[in-house]
């Protein structure tokens, strides 16, 4: 089984005026299919940069990034666009639905940019909407939906192109606790269905739902642990982190 994503010594440098910012300084890990990974880290740790690279919105300065068998570090702008349309499912903190489109039309957008949109595809979009619990709101506009409902639409949209993985960027950041729980349960259900999920978050209450937590610090992987398992898989700096106790605490009501 090939990995959904494989990072090999990934570097990313930004040139700001005369100064070079080294946002990622050699990150390597693999996300197997069916995994549920939370990427954490303080601001400035390189999470956003890593997210942009995983989402094919940017190219690494050095190193290689494979999605499935495709090396995206070698792709041009159009190929990156096509990869985004066909193999990546984005879920954003602020939902990012297109206001003038209805629920079902928003779900269709990635298919539209793949250049294929058949009658069956539209039917499938409606099915996805049904799956996330919005089957009765297909014709609504985003403005007519609550935050949680909008995020459900975004999740349905991220699934429609059968992606390598769902890339969620603080998906619950704008939601209240009850809705957060609902959305996280939806992610868990999707993961149980075999969907790969990569989620960027800074909340421990969210990351405990993932199977695995990767912590970044100063552009490097600080730790890479399995949740519910005190065995530290990879630890490049600092000592082992006791996540188990934390997880225990936060799952308590």
């Amino acid at each position: 089984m090939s990995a959904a994503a494989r990072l090999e010594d990934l570097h990313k440098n930004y040139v700001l005026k005369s100064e070079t910012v080294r946002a990622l300084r050699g990150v390597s890990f693999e996300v197997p299919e069916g995994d549920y990974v939370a990427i954490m880290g303080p601001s400035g740790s390189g999470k956003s940069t890593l997210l942009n690279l995983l989402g094919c919105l940017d190219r690494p300065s050095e190193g290689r990034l494979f999605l499935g068998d495709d090396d995206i570090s070698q792709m041009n702008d159009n190929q990156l666009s096509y990869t985004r349309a066909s193999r990546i499912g984005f879920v954003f903190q602020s939902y990012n639905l297109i206001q003038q489109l209805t629920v079902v039309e928003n779900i269709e957008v990635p298919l539209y940019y793949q250049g294929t949109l058949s009658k069956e595809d539209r039917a499938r979009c409606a099915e996805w909407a049904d799956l996330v619990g919005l089957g009765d709101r297909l014709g609504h506009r985003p403005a007519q939906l609550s935050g949680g409902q909008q995020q459900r639409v975004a999740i349905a949209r991220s699934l429609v192109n059968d992606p390598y993985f769902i890339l969620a960027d603080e998906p619950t950041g704008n939601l209240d606790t009850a809705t957060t729980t609902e959305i996280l349960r939806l992610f868990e259900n999707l993961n149980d269905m075999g969907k790969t999920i990569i989620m960027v978050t800074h909340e421990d209450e969210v990351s405990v739902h993932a199977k695995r937590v990767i912590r970044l610090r100063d552009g490097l992987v600080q730790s890479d642990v399995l949740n519910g398992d005190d065995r530290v898989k990879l630890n490049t700096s600092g000592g082992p982190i006791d996540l188990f106790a934390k997880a225990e605490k936060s799952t308590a009501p």
Partner: protein
Amino acid sequence: MLFLRTWILGIKSLFLHPMRSALTVLGIFIGVASVIWLLAIGEGISQEAQKQIEGLGADNIMVRSRKPLNPPDAGSNSFILSYGLLREDYDMLVATLPNIRSAIPIREMQREVRYGDTNIEARVVGCTPEYAEVTRLEIERGHFITDAEVKLQENVCVLAAGVVEDLFPYEDPIGRSIYLQEHEDYYKIVGIVQDRNPTAAIGGSMDAQDFGSDVYVPITTIRKRIGDTIVVRRSGSREGQTIQLDQITLRVKGIENVQRTAELVEQVLEKNHGKVQDVAVVVPLELLEQARRTRIMFMVFMGLIAAISLIVGGIGIMNIMLATVTERTREIGIRRALGARRNDIIRQFLVETIVLSVMGGATGILGGYLCQPIIRLARSGLQWYKPEMIQSLPEVVRDVDPIIVPISIPLAFGISVVIGVMFGLYPAYRAAQMDPIEALRHE
């Protein structure tokens, strides 16, 4: 399917800001409508002018007598000035010119004409039967002067509609006689001609011809009864001038021969009139061509003004689209993240500008078609409320009837679409060049 969706999406996006879109469309509407209006008004004016020139006859050449600026015998004691076309010229022209269908000698003079107690000033025209055909006179009743009447130098005349109106308001003029007081002579009326539009005035060499007050008489009768010399009494002294013919109108066979024949006419006349410039050759065809050149210049000028208003409309589109692109930065970011290529973004925004400009173009064409009714309505409205203002307007403005130039419709529409694309391209390009990461972060 996808193609259709792109367009539907464009229209939907425009409806996000209906007012803004409507104002942008208005800019193009005004541009397109003004192209059609200005060209229609220009065409109306120039066709009117052309009709007047055509009234002179495109296949005619007119040779006119004119008073020389410095008569050759100015110092002599002779009080009678003799100038202009001679009957000899007429014979010579008829004998030498090929390609001549007919040649009409004409003599004109202002005379008082009386019937009963009514006196009017009329223009007495001595001519031959062909005159009616050349000047497109239509006989209403009776007949025009005949060859026999010319040969026999009979005292007959044909009246123009204006003269009939003034002299015979209640009676039938046919068979009656009018009286020329200065020559103590009667002329029997044999025919009446229909009313005819006046011809154009032609720059200096010929007055505008108003055929309304004409009295047509055989040219031979004028020579016999009136003669060539006209004496005018002026403050004690007497002054006179001798003119044999005022004009010779030549009808040329085929318009293509007009130019060559005109040159020949000038060569022939040089013999008798070389030194004294007392004749002028007028070629309506030349005037017609001149009018056509003027018309093209006029059209170009009008088109230029209209094009400026279209460009202004285009700048309006660009302005709005730039604002739209900035405002929808977030949407652009989302679309890019979901897989839109740069070209997809360009296409999306270009479609919106094309929709705007096509809507402007289509409504502009409708507005253009309203040109005629609106101008007529405005004119009759003005006539109703302020008749004195209408009277003070120049004739061109008062009478112009716009004629929609067929080419102006596709032209205006095409230009509006081209302008939409031209001015939409830059905002669309700007949208496509945005960094998706930056765009997504945009609030």
